[in-house]
């Protein structure tokens, strides 16, 4: 009896609070700043450059979002989050959106009450070892000591992989990439495991990068993507479609350099709708007509962002692989803009 009264009060209070709390878009507009949760320091994805400004593949999406919503790609406040603090930061409202190499999993989507807006990088977990160890396959790692970052899916995948292959290992649970890198370099562990993209990024920063190899086995699916709090669907739509605008832009050949010119000259009705020349798609989610145009102009389309931050020409040197357009044999597939 008492319990049901209590729960009723909770529910009523929840309804009121839920109503008042909806509208991250309004909050962002009122603040005139987007608060973006990013990696504390993973070169290529989200890390401060020499001048202290955050740069990277994930950061570029923050900029595109700020450009789409606030008309200025620089109106972003970056909050560095560790693997351990990131979800609390998002759930508590400390950040508006979390774009931090976070794997889309069932329980994070449902139990943790988040919504993954899209997948901006299709990744998989790999292992990095020193060449002198003489290991060429993850299957030879039986008995090894392995560094893992706490609070990540890799922790669970690692346990599953070794169990599945009837092997044992000693985990060294570290708090962030920087400490993991120190331990790995100092020889505190034989192998370092995280998403293959993260390994490539870490390897790129090592002074003797040629002495380290990333083993060929990819032991898990790690779809990384931006996520928002569950329940604010409009805000989720904005993050999702801003990302797809960048993907579609690459598909149709719209780049940061030619976006203005394309908008005036294009004959493709889909591109016209995307760039706000025809119809008013932006209004459907509370933005203006030119939102996608500004998002693309901020750091370029998906392909440009990829090549500038983590592509073959950068020290990280990742191939497009699964992250190519569907027309190129990859998995990137933007739903139609109509």
């Amino acid at each position: 009896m008492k319990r049901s009264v209590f729960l009723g009060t909770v529910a009523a209070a929840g309804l009121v609070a839920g109503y008042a709390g909806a509208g991250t878009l309004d909050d962002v507009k009122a603040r005139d700043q987007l608060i973006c949760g990013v990696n504390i320091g993973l070169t290529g994805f989200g890390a401060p450059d020499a001048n202290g400004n955050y740069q990277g593949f994930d950061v570029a999406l923050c900029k595109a979002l700020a450009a789409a919503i606030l008309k200025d790609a620089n109106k972003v406040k970056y909050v560095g989050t560790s693997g351990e603090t990131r979800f609390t930061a998002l759930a508590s409202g400390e950040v508006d959106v979390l774009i931090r190499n976070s794997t889309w999993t069932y329980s994070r989507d449902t139990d943790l009450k988040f919504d993954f807006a899209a997948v901006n990088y299709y990744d998989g977990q790999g292992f990095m070892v020193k060449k002198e160890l003489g290991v060429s396959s993850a299957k030879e790692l039986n008995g090894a000591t392995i560094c893992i970052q706490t609070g990540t899916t890799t922790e669970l995948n690692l346990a599953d992989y070794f169990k599945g292959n009837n092997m044992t290992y000693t985990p060294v649970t570290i708090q962030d990439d920087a400490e993991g890198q120190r331990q790995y370099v100092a020889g505190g562990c034989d192998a370092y495991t995280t998403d293959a993209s993260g390994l490539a990024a870490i390897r790129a920063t090592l002074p003797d990068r040629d002495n380290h190899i990333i083993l060929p086995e990819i032991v898990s699916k790690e779809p990384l993507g931006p996520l928002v709090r569950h329940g604010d669907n409009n805000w989720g739509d904005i993050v999702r479609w801003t990302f797809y605008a960048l993907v579609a832009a690459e598909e149709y050949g719209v780049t940061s350099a030619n976006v203005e010119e394309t908008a005036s000259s294009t004959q493709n009705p889909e591109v016209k709708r995307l760039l706000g020349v025809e119809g008013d798609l932006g209004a459907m989610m509370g933005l203006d007509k030119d939102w996608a145009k500004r998002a693309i102009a901020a750091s370029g389309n998906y392909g440009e962002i990829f090549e500038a931050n983590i592509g073959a020409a950068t020290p990280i040197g990742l191939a497009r692989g699964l992250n190519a357009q569907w027309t190129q044999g990859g998995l990137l597939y933007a739903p139609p803009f109509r």
Partner: protein
Amino acid sequence: MALASEQTRDAFRLSMLVYDTRFRSWTIQIVVLVLVALAFSWLVHNLVTNLAAKGKDIDFGFLWTRAGYDINQRLVAYTNDSTHARALLIGLLNTLLVASIGCALATILGVVVGILRLSRNWLIGRLMTVYVEVFRNIPVLLWILLVYVILTEVTPPPNAFKVVEGKEPLARMWLDGSVAVTNRGTNIPEPLFSRSLGNIDLGIFLVSLDLLAIIAVLAGSFFLNRLVVRAAAVRQEATGIRPATWWKSVLIWVLPVVALLYALGFHLAYPVFKGFNFQGGIQVLHSFTALLIALTIYTGAFIAEAVRAGVQAISRGQTEAAYALGLPAGRTMRLVILPQALRVIIPPLISQYLNLTKNTSLAIAVSYMDLRGTLGGITLNQTGRELEAMLLLMGIYLVISLIISSVMNIYNNAVRLKER
């Protein structure tokens, strides 16, 4: 008289709640109580509202689901198929292990340093002052990290011990090939029993019967030894001559245990380098060693100050009286000064024990999987139950602290000055 009785019959006025000293203290207390209750209910309401807004509830059911992660230091059986509650237990035991050994070592170090600081030898006194001031004025987290980095950076990697044909290995094991210090941990021999008595299953964990047997024999030796010492004391009372008991004590302590170990088939399994790491033996992780050393020397500095204060609180006359009776300096300290100083030392010592125990939660900085690392770290993150995990964590630390406090208080009551 008449005036006073008239005053008590005065009608109660509201202003008396503030101006009348008979009511004022009540008024203040009630107002404060209401304010505290309001603040508390506001906090709880805030929490409940925000949880409901996020669609979250308070549910401890996650404790019984599969944990799915591995832990490198396990005092009792655990695999990644165990539950989160089991992982909590592993973390709790790791916390208690480092806290209990830390408290013991810090006490020994603190007592020695505290007494040496009073030494009339200028060099020793100053050295101890430097130790105390350096260690207690720098945050313990920095000491933990420093010790850990030193341990991991100056020691050789495990594969330096690899024996290759015709080549001298880069590093050698110590103590006749039984101990190897690598940059991951210290590998020491493991005691094994070839005619083991087996284990009893307590439901939560297994208890080794061999260990119980050894403890029982040691306890027997302890009581036997006490009898011998008492008999010697009685003899001394009667005749004034104390018979030599040391050889009896040694026999009583050593013989039964050696006999038992022989009966159980005691032998040591040496760690051997195989594959990536040392196999066999016990690996004492550097994260544990670093945490233990740092907490010991940090808390030891505080305890040293408490001991010094306690010793200095005993009047000089006690020492002089002891000297006058012909007691040497060491015995004066052990038999006269320290027992009296304990009364002053114990209360601050309790809070140092509590501090040390709570400081073990810094373990995650060196990847030591204590309670904060398992329940407050990995479990919290994998299940997303921040509130529940934090409440549990706070509750457990509170209970540990209260237990330490009450045990030490019982001891304090036993040694304190009894007034008759």
